[in-house]
């Protein structure tokens, strides 16, 4: 379904007029880097544990204007997943109720484009959680850094193989190594990848 059509339908389905701003044209040229930590990788069941969003204005990553929220999951944390997201039950106990966290997120991102790494998954989780209450999916444009990276890197490879792991991309782009496994850390790395990739000329040969 074309995006415009989907947006038009969703706009009519919106249950809460307070969120009409999501369908307005973006208020500025900023984009938002987004990352969520979840309890697992199953889009039907995974719950949000933390959300981080950072505003990007051109080449400037506004870490001073960021959203970095812990979410209290509805169910119980499965111990086997703690190793994956590094959040213990006691860490998320102080988190916000999921609806409140998502409201803050929606107000922070507005209708601006979203940037991230395999953002499709994060957006799917958010859509599942806001759907029953608001009747919509996130209407924002989604820019995946792995897609940008692939397009720019493919012409420079010999065998058509592009390392699209987050770490592989970080190395490929020559970005600093930073502590990860937090929503904020990954959102920041995603933002760095985006500013580096955005507007980069299409390469003829290796460019890093």
């Amino acid at each position: 379904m074309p995006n415009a059509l989907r947006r038009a339908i969703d706009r009519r389905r919106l249950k809460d007029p307070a969120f009409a701003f999501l369908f307005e044209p973006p208020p500025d040229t900023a984009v938002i880097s987004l990352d969520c930590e979840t309890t697992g990788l199953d889009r039907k069941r995974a719950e949000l544990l933390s959300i981080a969003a950072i505003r990007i204005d051109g080449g400037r990553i506004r870490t001073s204007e960021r959203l970095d929220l812990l979410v209290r999951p509805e169910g119980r944390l499965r111990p086997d997943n703690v190793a994956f997201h590094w959040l213990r039950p006691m860490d998320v106990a102080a988190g916000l109720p999921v609806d409140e966290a998502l409201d803050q997120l929606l107000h922070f991102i507005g209708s601006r484009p979203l940037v991230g790494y395999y953002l499709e998954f994060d957006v799917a989780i958010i859509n599942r959680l806001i759907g029953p209450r608001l009747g919509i999916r996130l209407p924002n444009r989604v820019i995946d850094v792995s897609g940008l990276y692939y397009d720019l890197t493919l012409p420079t490879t010999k065998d058509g193989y592009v390392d699209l792991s987050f770490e592989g991309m970080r190395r490929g782009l020559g970005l600093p190594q930073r502590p990860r496994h937090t929503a904020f850390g990954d959102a920041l790395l995603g933002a760095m990848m985006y500013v580096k990739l955005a507007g980069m000329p299409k390469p003829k040969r290796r460019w890093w």
Partner: protein
Amino acid sequence: MPDAFDFSLPPFDRLSDSEQRRLRKALDIGFFRSGETVLAAGAPAESFFVLIKGFVEERDREDVVAVYGPGDMFDSRRLIGAPAGNAFIVAEEALCYLIPTDLLLAIIRENPGFATYFHQSIAQKVDALAGRRDSQELQSLMTARVRQAFIHPPEFIAATSPAYEAVALMKARRLNALLVRSGREAGIVTALSLSDAVILRGQPTESPVGPIATWELVDIQANDFLFNALVLMTRHNLRRLVVRDGREIVGLLEEVDVLSFLSNHSHIVALQVARAETREDLKTASRNMVRLVEVLHGTGVRIPFIAETVSELAGRILARLFGLIAGEDFARNACLIVMGSEGRREQILKTDQDNGLILRAPVDPARLERVTTEFRNALLEFGYPPCPGDIMVTNPDWARTLDDYRADFRHWSASADGAAVMKAAIFADATAVAGDPGLLAEARTALFDSLAGNDAFLYRFAQAADAFDVPRGPLARLIAGRAESQALDIKKSGLFPIVHGVRSLALQRRLVETNTIDRIRRLQDTPIFDRPFAEDLVQSFTVFQELRLKTRLGRGTAAGGPDDAMADTVIDPQRLGSLEREVLKDSLAVVKRFRELVRHHFRLAAI
């Protein structure tokens, strides 16, 4: 990410926890492409930049005056309200933290310790770099600490071990003594006490070392004066002391090492020179000088003082040698001069033979040749290489009568060509080391007189300061410590422009001083430049000299080659710490300002 901002990076390590929190919250991250302007010339800065990755060049119009690399920050000058002059342009894709200027200024106002970093003038930064190197007197050598001498690491053996094992260990480790451990007690066993026990008293080689060892240790703290160590050894008639740091034993101090340390003192070298009866004695003294430089530098004595001490000693060696070769009557009617860095008393290690003779009256050519040849050969033997430009007493151009020199000066002034300028520059630094110094004083006055008012000559003379341009691009990047970059030639980019610019001004103003720092001090009271600038110039000059010495000592060429060899003045960026780099950047900026000043001064004079 801001959570990972490196607060151990000076000056941020001086921030309190709450200040760190405020700063962390306000941080942004900027990404700039190659060639992008981070700060335009004259533009105010909303942010203070701390580089995470990449390189940024600071440019004054077209010239690169500094390059910033990872961990470096800019622009402190804008921050403290200095005129926002230079542009900052990305040399290689840069990722940096942006600290809001307002916030940083607020913290600077609240935290004086943090503020000083930004307010430090070059002079103060140099002091921070030099750390404890503020003691300028020779006194610092007399107050050398035990820890500065060679301390043998402690080697322990159990009290129950057999004597033969102790001997084997000593042999393996080339030691004369071992420490003996028995529970918490420590004793010492020496080669002498072992041989006493086994050979003289006939004890079996299997007997334990415990009863043979001495359990009353005479010890000294590592922090104590070396002088006291010598006193203790003499009083107890010992060859070694146990060195402790607090209660812990850190090693053994041998008498021979104390003596060799002390024997490198400059006055001991001076004494050797004064007592020298033969050329061989002088040669030994000359050799000890190189070791002296290393010791002086290692003890933290500042460069100008080292240069002065070494020049003084080298002068004495030359004077003594000249006296031995030429004989009294010859020396009375001649003046031996040294030129170049030796004449300026800035030589740190041995230099080329840059020397000449001023004769009162013509002397028998055969005798002159015998004296000068012997003198040159003796110096060669001492390790002073011949001057590549042949500025030596053996060259008749540099061993002539006062009247001949007078004629030369007139000729130089009239022709004002490249050779004349070079010769004038060489002679301008002449210092008398032996014979009658009055001859040099007369010659100097004659040189000043013949150049007085010859603005065209002085203009050409000063122009030579621009002989080497400070290259941009790859060279400048090196300052930022980039591995693949080319090297920075300290002499071309730093020392020479200062030395020659100052020399030009000194020549014009008829200054009799030859030392660059002395000349700057004399010039600071003239309209040419003010005191703060003189201070910056002296400090920059010292920085370059220090870097050069460090590089040369680091390469182990101290004992070898000439001081003026270009190859030895190239610095290795990998060895520079970020504070050193910062100081180097500032010093290069001072050189640049000075070159402009000299250019301006003489251009005006020539019109």
